[in-house]
């Protein structure tokens, strides 16, 4: 029982396989980014460079607006900070989930790929995460994100509209596949998800509140819902698995 709980995910090819659907989902989103960047008058290489060095959606789209408006660099820094602050929470969560064998240089590399989707898929694994699994997991999403931007920037009329519309939902299908099964099994998880969704709708539709940036809205939802979960349903046990069968929830 104890050994099973201390399981370490450290297979490169398992990581790589898990990254493929993320990479495919990224293709359509980054395609849009490449298209928008070029239509704002930016050269294709800059759009590709942004995608390769940033690997994030909301932050890049917001950055595009600032570049187009030739806004101050400080504004760029502040906007990126607020929109991407959620990654700090995820990195903190990862710091508890990474195997003790993961070295500092490996952490420096893994941190680069802290996106919502990579974080979510890795968190869904039981036990700890090893460097090989993590590095395998990063590859397809980085390729997908950069390649999608390249295609979008160079040939924006390549994919017909109806295909792009259908691909747009792929990433959300993955999110649901991650949150629905544990929500079905564990009441505390279900409640946390419902609270997050409720606040998210409120922040999206309520007057005044809807002016919040999407990154900031996600931070508020995540902090509020998780705090309620931690307060009402503390999690016991040594294993830090964000989902799956292991994390035991007191209720």
């Amino acid at each position: 029982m104890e050994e099973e709980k201390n399981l370490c995910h450290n297979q490169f090819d398992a990581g790589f396989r898990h990254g493929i659907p993320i990479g495919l989902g990224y293709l359509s989103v980054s395609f849009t980014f490449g298209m928008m960047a070029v239509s704002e008058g930016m050269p294709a290489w800059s759009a590709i460079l942004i995608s390769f060095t940033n690997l994030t959606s909301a932050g890049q789209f917001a950055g595009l607006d600032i570049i187009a408006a030739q806004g101050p660099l400080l504004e760029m820094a502040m906007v990126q900070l607020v929109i991407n602050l959620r990654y700090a929470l995820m990195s903190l969560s990862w710091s508890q989930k990474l195997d003790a064998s993961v070295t500092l240089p490996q952490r420096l590399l893994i941190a680069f790929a802290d996106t919502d989707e990579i974080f979510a898929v890795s968190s869904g694994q039981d036990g700890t995460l090893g460097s090989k699994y993590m590095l395998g997991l990063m590859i397809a999403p980085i390729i997908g994100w950069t390649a999608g931007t390249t295609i979008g920037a160079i040939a924006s009329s390549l994919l017909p509209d109806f295909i792009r519309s259908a691909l747009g939902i792929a990433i959300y299908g993955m999110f649901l596949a991650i949150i629905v099964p544990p929500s079905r099994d564990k009441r505390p998880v279900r409640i946390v998800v419902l609270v997050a969704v409720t606040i998210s709708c409120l922040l999206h539709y309520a007057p005044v509140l809807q002016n919040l940036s999407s990154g900031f809205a996600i931070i508020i939802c995540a902090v509020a819902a998780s705090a309620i979960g931690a307060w009402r349903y503390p999690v016991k046990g040594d294993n830090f698995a964000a989902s799956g069968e292991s994390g035991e929830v007191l209720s």
Partner: protein
Amino acid sequence: MTTGTLIGYIVVMAGVTYAIRVIPLVLCQRQITNVFVRSFLYYIPYAVLGAMTIPAIFYATSNMVSATVGLIAAVILSWQRRSLITVAVFACVAVLITEWIQALI
């Protein structure tokens, strides 16, 4: 805009984004023992994904009807514990079929 200015923007964007990601991961290397903090971090992924999915999913396709059908398909399949890829692919197929029917009507 000059190439230099453009690169300046990109460096700031990438630098800030990477700093946010790397600092917690490098600074926090030991196990957190506080039950509240541990539980909080346990719930974070679910809360983030829930908030990111709804209501954004309704605007992810060309209209809300096809998005809703895709959402329902994804929820049913994930309820049955299908894999990530299966759920994603069939949500796309559901959207495709819905928009095809809409075009016929």
